[in-house]
C-alpha cells in the first residue's frame, strides 16, 4: 500500500510545483526586466507588435549589463511615477482607516443586538454585495455630484468606507463568537459600548486584520472607481489607472515602475499571509 502511494505523491508534487512556477513566472520576469537599462528596454519593447512571420522577439533572460538605471530614473530623475504611487498609498491608507472605524461598528450592531429590522438590513447588505459595480456606477456619480464630491478624492474614498462585503465578513465572525464572552463582561457591569471596545474589538482583531488585508488587495487595485469618479482630474488618479499609460509611452522605466507597484502588495502578502488566509475562509461561515 505504502509503496504504491509514494510515486503518485511525487507526481502530484511535480504537478503542483509546475502550477506554482507558472503562476510565479510573470512576477519573476517583471522583476528581472527591471534590472535592464532603460535604453535596452526601449529597444526591446519596440520589437513588439510586429506581424512579420519571419521575425521573433528575443527571449531575453539576462540584461546586457545589470543596471539600476530604471530605478534611478523613477525614484530620482522623474518622479511622476512616484507621485502616482503616492496617490495609491494615500487612497489605500484613507480607505482602510475609514473601514477600520465603520465596518466593525456595523458588524457589531448586526450581530450583538436584536432589533426589528435586523434581518432586513442584513439581507440588504447581502444584495448590495452581489451588485456588480456597473449597476450603481451612474447613480453613484449623480449622488456624488449632488454632494459636490465628484472629481475630488472623497468620491473614491467615502463609498469604500462602507463596503458591504467587509461588513458581511466581520458580521459572520462576530455572530460566531460565544455569548458567554459578552455575558461575562456584562456581569461585571459593562454596557454594550464598553463590551464593544473591551471585548468585541480585541477578540475580533484577527478577523479585522483579515478583512483589512483583503480590502488592501481591492484598494491597491482600484481601477473602475477612480476612472469614473475622477475622470476630469488626471493628477488625482492612482497608479493602478495610470499604469497603462506608462506602458504605452514606453519610457523604458515601466518594469521598475511595475516592481515599485508590486512591492507594497508583496510586503502585505508576506506580513499578513495568515490573516489573508483566515479572511478568505471567513467568507464561508454560514
Amino acid at each position, binding site marked *: 500500500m505504502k509503496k504504491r502511494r509514494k510515486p503518485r505523491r511525487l507526481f502530484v508534487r511535480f504537478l*503542483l510545483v509546475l502550477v506554482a512556477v507558472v503562476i510565479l513566472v510573470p512576477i519573476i520576469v517583471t522583476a528581472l526586466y527591471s534590472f535592464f537599462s532603460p535604453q535596452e528596454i526601449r529597444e526591446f519593447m519596440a520589437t*513588439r507588435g510586429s506581424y512579420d512571420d519571419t521575425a521573433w*522577439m528575443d527571449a531575453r533572460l539576462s540584461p546586457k549589463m545589470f543596471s539600476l538605471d530604471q530605478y534611478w530614473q523613477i525614484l530620482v530623475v522623474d518622479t511622476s511615477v512616484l507621485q502616482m504611487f503616492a496617490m495609491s498609498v494615500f487612497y489605500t491608507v484613507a480607505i482602510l482607516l475609514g473601514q477600520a472605524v465603520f465596518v466593525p461598528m*456595523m458588524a457589531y450592531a448586526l450581530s450583538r443586538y436584536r432589533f426589528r429590522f435586523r434581518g432586513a438590513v442584513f439581507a440588504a447588505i447581502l444584495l448590495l454585495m452581489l451588485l456588480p459595480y456597473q449597476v450603481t*456606477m451612474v447613480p453613484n456619480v449623480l449622488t456624488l455630484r449632488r454632494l459636490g464630491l465628484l472629481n475630488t478624492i472623497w468620491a473614491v474614498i467615502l463609498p469604500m468606507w462602507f463596503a458591504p462585503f467587509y461588513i458581511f465578513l466581520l458580521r459572520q465572525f462576530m455572530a460566531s463568537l460565544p455569548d458567554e464572552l459578552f455575558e461575562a463582561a456584562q456581569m461585571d457591569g459593562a*454596557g454594550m459600548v464598553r463590551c464593544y471596545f473591551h471585548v468585541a474589538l480585541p477578540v475580533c482583531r484577527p478577523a479585522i486584520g483579515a478583512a483589512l488585508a483583503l480590502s488592501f488587495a481591492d484598494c*491597491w487595485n482600484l481601477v473602475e472607481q477612480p476612472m469614473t469618479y475622477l475622470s476630469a482630474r488626471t493628477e488625482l488618479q492612482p497608479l493602478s489607472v495610470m499604469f497603462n499609460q506608462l506602458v504605452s509611452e514606453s519610457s523604458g522605466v515601466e518594469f521598475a515602475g511595475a516592481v515599485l507597484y508590486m512591492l507594497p502588495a508583496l510586503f502585505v502578502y508576506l506580513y499578513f*499571509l495568515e490573516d489573508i488566509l483566515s479572511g*478568505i475562509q471567513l467568507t464561508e461561515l454560514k
Partner: protein
Amino acid sequence: MRNKPRRMRRNRSLWLFLLPPSVGLLIFYVVPFFAGIYYSLTDGSYTNAFVGLKNYAEIWHNEMFLLGLRNTMELSLICAPLVWVLAFVIAVLLNRLRPSGALLRNSILLPYLMPASAMLLVWLLFFDYGGTLNRIIHLLGMERVAWLSGAALRFPVVLLFVWKNLGFAVILFLSALQAVPEPLYEYARLEGASLARQAVSITLPLISPTAMLVIIVEWISAFKIFREVYFIGGAYPDEAVYTLQNYMNNMYNRLNYQNVTSAAYSFAMIVFVLFGILFAMLGRAQRKLN
C-alpha cells in the same frame, strides 16, 4: 420591554453603532440604487419627464449593449467554471500533500494581491505575435496566432483573470477539504476507487456548499471583467472582448446617463435572477447535507 430599563439602555446604544455606517450605506449605496431606478424611467431632459420603459425598450434594441451583455455573460461563463475546476483539482492535489505543501498553496495565492496592471507588461511580451507563446506553438509545429488582436484576445483576458483569482478559490476549497474525514478515503481506497473517482463521488458531495460558494464568488468577480480588457485592449477593444463596462464607460463619457442606467438595471435584473437560482440550489444542497 418597557418595564426593563436595562434592555432600553441596550437598545439606545444600538443607534450609536448602527447609525453612522447606515447613513453611509444609505447615501452611497441604497439611495443611488433607488434613484437610479427612477432615473432610468425618465427622459433626462431639463424637465425630467417620466417616459416609462422607453429607455429599456431602446437599450434592448441597441446593438452595442447587446454585444457587451453577451460578451460579459460569455466571458463570465468561461472564467467562473474554469477557475472552479482548476481550483478544485489543485485543492484536491494539495490536500494529498498535507501537512506539507503550504509553500505551494501560498504561492498560488500571491497573484490575488498583485496589481493586474503591473502584470500587463509580461502579458504583452508573452502573447506578442513574436513572443514566447507563439514560439512554443511554432516549436510544436503549429501556426502562430495573433493573440493581441481579434477574437483571440479573449485568451489572454481569461488567463489574466484565472491567474489572479485561482488562489482565492483554492483556499476556499482547501479549508472545506480539510474537514472531510480521512477514513472515508481509506474505505474508498480499499474498495479500489481511483483518485478521480474519490474526488467526484466522496469529496464533491461533502463540500457542495463550498463548491457553490466558490462558483458564486468567482461569478461575481467574473461579471466585473473589465480591467483585464481595459489593460490589454484599451477603451475601445475588439468586438470579442467588448464588455458591458466598456459600453457603459463609453455611454457615460457621452453623458448618456439614461442609457447607462437602464443598461445597468437590465443587467442587475439578470444578475439577481441568476443568483436567486444559485442560492436556492445552495440552500437545497445544504439541507440535503444535513
